[in-house]
């Protein structure tokens, strides 16, 4: 055990206020939100804003309402929207960012100016970006008018108001789809374990996979979360929002990648050249592998931005546009316009869990890394 030196006492004294404040304003409020999400606060309008509201404990009722309630189709569409938005937003930012970084890494003329231009969108807030892009993606005006400059017909794509969608699936089939996907992953794990001659792991994975697949085949098709089929898919209205978000954040990934590229010692490139590799081989086998930690951290940061995105969607599509809505927007409307605090808290909690899925593995990885160094 270490002694309590003067230095350590000072450290404790200085840290205590922030620990207390974080304890109250972050963790206590998280706990409070989770508690509220398990009550019925606001489900009865008369109690929502009363001076001393009667609040009852209802367990997971709000959550089952969100995932299977007749009125909450909007929330389910938003979950699907978030999934597709996150996917395309991250892919877009990584692709564009890496491309720009590779170009700038070749030291073009006026590199500093280009860097500033590419990084500039990040200095705007999402609400500004959203407003500008809303103007540009207007149904009659903006980019739809671009072909007329060349004498063509104006295009008619409904960037933010389209109701068409692709990749549709029935929400009722969700348990089935999930079970099948997890089952297939477990089979892959089992096969790998078998190759590595890890018998225990192979057995566990194989048994779990068999159970899941068996469930999916025998019981899954009969599970009904909703009385009627409910189709959700990738709405084309989100494409406009994805473009704006990528425009805003790809400069940031560019900066990350550029820092990574500049951090690669010249000796490695030279060594690769001496060994007779051409440019593309050098990038594939030397530089990209060294950039993979940067890709990971960029994915984490972009991932949590996309899960909590609110202002961009609010500015571009408006609050009532279900086709392009996201859970954070619904949480705001549910809590502060409909006064359904418990239901809003439940949506908030679901968002927290989703963000935790992204952040916790990253944090665990970071801590493990630090311990390794220490």
């Amino acid at each position, binding site marked *: 055990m270490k002694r309590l030196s003067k230095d350590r006492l000072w450290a404790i004294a200085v840290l205590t206020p922030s620990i207390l404040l974080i304890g109250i304003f972050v963790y206590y409020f998280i706990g409070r939100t989770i508690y509220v999400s398990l009550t019925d606060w606001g489900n009865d309008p008369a109690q929502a804003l009363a001076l001393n509201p009667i609040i009852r404990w209802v367990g997971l009722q709000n959550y089952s309402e969100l995932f299977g309630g007749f009125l909450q189709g909007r929330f389910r569409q938003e979950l699907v929207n978030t999934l597709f938005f996150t996917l395309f937003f991250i892919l877009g930012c990584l692709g564009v960012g890496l491309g720009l970084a590779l170009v700038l890494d070749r030291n073009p003329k006026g590199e500093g100016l280009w860097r500033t231009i590419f990084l500039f969108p990040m200095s705007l807030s999402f609400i500004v970006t959203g407003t500008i892009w809303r103007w540009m993606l207007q149904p009659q005006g903006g980019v739809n008018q671009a072909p007329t400059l060349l004498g063509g017909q104006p295009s008619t794509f409904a960037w933010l108001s389209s109701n068409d969608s692709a990749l549709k699936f029935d929400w009722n089939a969700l348990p089935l789809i999930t079970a099948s996907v997890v089952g297939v992953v477990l089979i892959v794990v089992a096969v790998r374990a078998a190759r590595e001659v890890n018998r225990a792991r192979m057995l566990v994975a194989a048994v779990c996979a068999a159970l899941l697949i068996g469930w999916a085949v025998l019981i899954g098709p009969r599970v009904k979360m909703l009385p009627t089929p409910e189709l959700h898919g990738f709405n084309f209205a989100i494409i406009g929002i994805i473009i704006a978000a990528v425009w805003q954040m790809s400069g940031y990934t560019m900066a990350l990648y550029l820092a990574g590229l500049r951090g690669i010692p010249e000796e490695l490139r030279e060594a690769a050249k001496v060994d007779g590799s051409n440019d593309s081989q050098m990038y594939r086998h030397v530089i990209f592998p060294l950039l993979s930690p940067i890709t990971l951290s960029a994915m984490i940061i972009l991932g949590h931005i996309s899960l909590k995105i609110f202002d961009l969607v609010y500015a571009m599509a408006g609050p*009532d546009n279900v086709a392009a809505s996201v859970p954070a927007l619904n949480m705001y409307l549910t809590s502060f316009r409909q006064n359904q605090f418990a239901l809003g808290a439940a949506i908030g909690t679901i968002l927290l869990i989703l963000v935790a899925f992204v952040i916790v593995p990253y944090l665990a990885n970071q801590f493990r890394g630090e311990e390794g160094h220490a």
Partner: protein
Amino acid sequence: MSKAPVKTSSLKKAFLIAAALATTTSALAAGKLEIFSWWAGDEGPALEALVKLYKEKYPSVAVDNATVTGGAGTNARAVLKTRMLGGTPPDSFQVHAGQELIGTWVVAGRMEDLSSLFKSEGWTKAFPADVVKLISSKGGIWSVPVNVHRSNVMWYNPDKLKAWGVSVPKTWPEFISTCATLKKKGVAAPLVVGENWTQQHLWENVMIGTLGTQNWENLWAGKLKFTDPKVVGAFTTFGKVMDCANKDASGLSWQQASDRIVSGQSAFNIMGDWAAGYFTTTKKLAPGKGFAWATAPGTSKTFVMLADSFGLPKGVKDRAEAINWLKLLGSKAGQDTFNPLKGSIAARIDSDLSKYNTYSRSAATDWKNSKIVGSMAHGAVAPETFTSAFGAVIDQFVATRNSAGAAAAAQALAVRSGFGK
């Protein structure tokens, strides 16, 4: 253990003395009044004129005009909520008259009953009985309406209608056949609608025009279910009306939608009478020439109203000043100062019509002679819980055109909001 109570009581005493000192000094200095509203921009001068009138009557009172900007008060309502829940209510706040106040704050027991004020000021006679009914519940009257807007107005371009050779439709079926005629003549979208709330606005006009006023009132009293075949049929009519509309609706504000009437791109627009102010003031058009109006199809003897009103929260700091403010708002002088500037008409039936413009005069005449019902889209007949979630129902319906599904969703919402049982 025994020491603690002594300590708190002495502390309390000190606090009380301090508080008493503070209140006496402020009372000696001057009264104070905080008014909370979302009137800014175009509506700012009208509010300022009212405040000026108040200061003339009560020169010692310092008026704090706390305005939170944002269309239709969505931002202001959020700020108001945090203030009310935080225990610092403004002395008097603006709210859409009717269920927006009753379903949110009155049911929660946060408002003072103004019945005695209505009696002493003679307002039960000055305002139409239908309006007093809309702002009352549970034996109380809850707010003072300052102005009235009409929501069932159909705007059109008279020259264009003549050129197309069609007349103004009187019923919704007639509207749909007029729409077919116009489509044949190459008008892609005979009806122009804008973002979601303007579609809700259109929806309520189709409902009232199809179901009639009695059924409309029954719907909000819980006596008629949304799943009733009549209502489902009206939803189907609404779908057919939406077939006449532009496809880029959700990208348009109501002003942009009105512009298409002026440009002749579309023939009709259903909007509230604030559009008259937009046409005359912003677009510099002459009433009856550049633009014209009729009641929305099927609602000729009906006045669908929405009103801005002020209420008195419980436990405010400057109650006496707030009551004087409410008295001013309900008075003839107050309403005739405010409304000509705001572009609305007075809620009182004895207002001085010479102060108003052509459109307002016609609306004021109808105000006295029509059956008055409340608007859903503007908070008169349905509580916030319903109106705010109903946007998604309309959006879903416009995408799918599933009348039965939308009706069932609306019914479920009604039950959840506490009036559809």
